């Protein structure tokens, strides 16, 4: 695997995480429990779409076949998507959506922190812009996790159920493969496994404040990063890609 091949894969992973999660979060628009959360979730979804444009835009550039961010987002099928299984999990209730967001935000903030010093200036530049947005996402989702976890009996139980359900989808973040080997050797990106300890420390601290118990399981659902997805991604893409599939090249 050449360096550019590895970088292309890695950029797809970053961009597909943000586009799929953005779509999931956007499903809340008009349905959130309160107006203020509705707007906050919409802002988060928009931030993630913005990041997607950068990551997939750069992926197309690195690939060198003339594909744009739009081509990559709207014209690839599920098996070509490289996002974590975590971000395609269904929204569930508001608490579960926030739990998924928190587990991802914690990982993304650490990943972007490492990418700030990437040897590839294009990657470092995008990371610098995105890390400010993600710092806020994390602050907000962490606060919500603590508020609801250490809240009423009902909210606590819901947050614990959300954590139990999502926990086995977090291990995939830290599974390294050839892409990680090539890019960490070149100083472009950290090895996925190297983020695990910091993530566990950060997430553990917040979950403790939230009086939630981390499930006693080290099982990890995996496959997203190599294109093996759950059935949910197909439905997301059907929604997201319908227009470009039905009316190729449509613009307005």
């Amino acid at each position, binding site marked *: 695997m050449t360096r550019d091949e590895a970088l292309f894969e890695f950029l797809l992973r970053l961009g597909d995480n943000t586009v799929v999660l953005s779509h999931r979060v956007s499903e809340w628009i008009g349905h959130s429990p*309160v*107006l*203020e959360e509705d*707007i*906050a979730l919409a*802002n988060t979804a928009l931030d993630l779409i913005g990041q997607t444009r950068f990551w997939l835009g750069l992926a197309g550039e690195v690939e060198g076949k003339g594909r744009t961010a739009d081509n990559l987002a709207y014209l690839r099928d599920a098996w070509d998507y490289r996002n974590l299984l975590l971000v395609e999990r269904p929204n569930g209730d508001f608490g579960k959506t926030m739990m998924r967001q928190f587990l991802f935000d914690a990982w993304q903030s650490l990943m972007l922190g490492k990418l700030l010093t990437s040897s590839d200036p294009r990657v470092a530049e995008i990371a610098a812009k995105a890390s400010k947005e993600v710092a*806020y996402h994390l*602050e*907000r989702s962490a*606060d919500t996790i603590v*508020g609801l976890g250490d809240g009423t009996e009902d909210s606590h139980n819901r947050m614990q159920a959300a954590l139990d359900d999502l926990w086995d989808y977090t291990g995939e973040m830290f599974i390294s493969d050839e892409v990680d080997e090539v890019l960490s050797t070149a100083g472009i990106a950290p090895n996925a496994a190297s983020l695990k300890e910091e993530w566990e420390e950060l997430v553990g601290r917040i979950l403790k404040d939230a009086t939630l118990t981390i499930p006693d399981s080290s099982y990890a659902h995996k496959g997203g990063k190599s294109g093996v997805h759950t059935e949910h991604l197909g439905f997301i893409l059907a929604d997201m890609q319908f227009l470009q599939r039905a009316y190729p090249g449509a613009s307005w």
Partner: protein
Amino acid sequence: MSNEWPLWEVFIRGQHGMSHRHVGSLHAPDGEMAIKNARDVYTRRNEGISIWVVEAANISASSPSDKGPLYEPSNSKVYRHPSFFDIPDDVGAM
């Protein structure tokens, strides 16, 4: 007990040197979340550099029915306006 979050009034400072201005209100469980919500609701288009929030219940307001005794006495006291002096040109804008 009400399940509604309390109402907060939001004040935003647009730029350095300006004072905070009331921009609207929102609901939030506490002050910290009120600031976060204000950030998301009122500063999406780069409107502010500082946010104040205050729980609406903590604001003491004058009553509209008191407007006679409160404001009318000053209507007839034009001499309170410092507009009876000639300002020398050298002073510039005041």
